[in-house]
């Protein structure tokens, strides 16, 4: 992957299993976000391949990756502030009313609210009344809504993948715990999660496996249980030599 003359990613090979939470660590500019954007179809790699369930895919836009069952939670949450939580969760998969009104495109608000509440309950998150406009939510609640929007669109049985860019950057302690639990629960349902973060304790808590990037190269790929903070910091800063022979 190149940005002009800058080689942002170089010879990186990453894979994630269904039900696994993979952490992508690295300093600023290491290529974490770029890698995530390649996976989500927002960027096209200069060369290299993306395999989803062993099948070669080419993403030319984020909607392609959506069709392949990949959902991304961005750092800017991209919620519709003036609309309520239920509508935000329903955009793109509205429930239409039954009968002639449905043929005219009439939306069944009641069913949408019910579904939104059921989905939030199933994810085990509590935000606010689903009829509350997003603009009246706190930062943490918004984050949860954005996460839930993506989480409701991936499913473990269909081999969904959830990409998260700094999901807890703006959150307080309580909300961070909630998001962590949510990620674990999704993984428990068979969703493959990829998590980009600066937050080492979070990564140690949530991730099954950690990949460290340094200047666009992969320098470590270890199960979380077999490493510790010191090692990781060494790889992130470059003080510790790469696991892979140059």
């Amino acid at each position, binding site marked *: 992957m190149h940005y002009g003359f800058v080689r942002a990613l170089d010879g990186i090979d990453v894979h994630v299993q269904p039900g696994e939470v993979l952490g992508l660590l690295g300093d600023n500019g290491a290529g974490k976000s770029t890698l995530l954007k390649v996976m989500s179809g927002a960027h096209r790699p200069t060369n290299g391949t993306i395999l989803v369930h062993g099948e070669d895919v080419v993403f030319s836009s*984020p909607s392609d990756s959506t069709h392949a069952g990949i959902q991304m939670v961005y750092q800017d949450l991209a*919620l519709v*502030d*003036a609309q309520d939580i239920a509508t935000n969760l329903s955009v793109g998969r509205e429930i239409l009313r039954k009968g002639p009104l449905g043929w005219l*495109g009439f939306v069944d608000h009641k069913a949408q609210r019910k579904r939104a509440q059921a989905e939030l*309950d199933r994810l085990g998150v509590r935000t606010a009344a689903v009829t509350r406009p997003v603009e009246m*939510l706190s930062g943490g609640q918004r984050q949860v809504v954005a996460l839930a929007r993506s989480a409701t669109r991936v499913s473990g049985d269909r081999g969904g993948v959830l990409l998260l860019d700094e999901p807890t950057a703006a959150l307080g302690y309580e909300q961070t*715990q*909630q998001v962590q639990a949510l990620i674990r629960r999704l993984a428990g349902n068979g969703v493959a999660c990829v998590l980009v973060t600066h937050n080492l304790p979070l990564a140690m808590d949530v991730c099954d496996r950690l990949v460290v990037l340094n200047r666009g190269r992969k320098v470590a790929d270890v199960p979380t249980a077999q490493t510790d903070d010191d090692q990781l910091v060494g790889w992130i800063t470059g003080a510790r030599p790469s696991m892979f022979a140059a």
Partner: protein
Amino acid sequence: MTGTASTAAPTRNPADVDPAGVRWLIFVRDRGIFVLWVLLLLGFSVWANPYFASLDNAILIANAASLTAIFAAGVAVGIICGALDLSIPGTAAFGSCLCGVLLTHGWPTWTGIVAALLVGVVVGLVNGLIALRGFNPIVVTIGTLSVLSGLAAVIAGGYTIPGLDALTFMGTQRYAGVPGPVWIVAALFVLGTVFLTRTRDGIRMMAVGGNREAVRRSGIHSDRYTVLGFVISGFCAALGGLVTTALVTEANPEASPGIIFTALTAVALAGVSLSGGRGSLPRVLVGALILATISNGLTIKGIQPYWGTTVTGLLLLGAIGLEKWISATVSRRLVTTAQASAHTGTR
């Protein structure tokens, strides 16, 4: 409630329901303009007794508000969808002149009306497609405004086209005692409101105005909703042009920018945010009615009409002040309750 996941679903919490004070503030924010209008009506009824509070005068006010309301609907839909459409006067002028030319050349009335409305739709399409190329919609629509008012003068030969009596059925003609334009406004606003709040496309259109990225990431082509917004706006403009023509039975090629500002005043009074994504047509209608009510009441009392403009301006400034205060208060209240629930909640 059965949680499919291994963890039990959390029990429904009182914090899931908004506190009463907050709900009241939201009510004032969303419905305050209706209260304001009722207060105005009551005030004028007492002050301008006995002439103000009569059915005839009510119809007069509704009729006076109808033109502003039609144009305001166009402006509002444009803004809600994320673009201020300034080409509205041009579309109105060109549409009505085209209708006038067709009628004076012996075409049937309906062809003139259909042609004018088609002009609105086509102008909307062109505006939308240009704006999608990444140009600022304000500049684009200033361009089309100029083009259209020029073209209107060309086809009308530079003069107003008089004698369009065939259109009076949607002008001064009354049905069940109510003038045609009022019926047109009623139909337009009912359809528009139902579309924006009840249908999938309408809701998506509002969402595009609020946050294009959110809609795009949901795998929806947001572009077509932007174009749709311009098309509806153009349609309203052409309709407004036709009703203007019908009222005065002549088509004027001069595009008056004044109608944009009157419409914008009604839209702003209605609390439609210029940044897009929010607003409601019933409130816009009341905004237009408030303007008409003020000028009607002051006229009855024999007060110079300049005061009407001044009062409207003051109301507008008061309205935005109130909105700001309410939004700030609501978020302050909600932050305190959110913190309370965070500490009393999950564990």
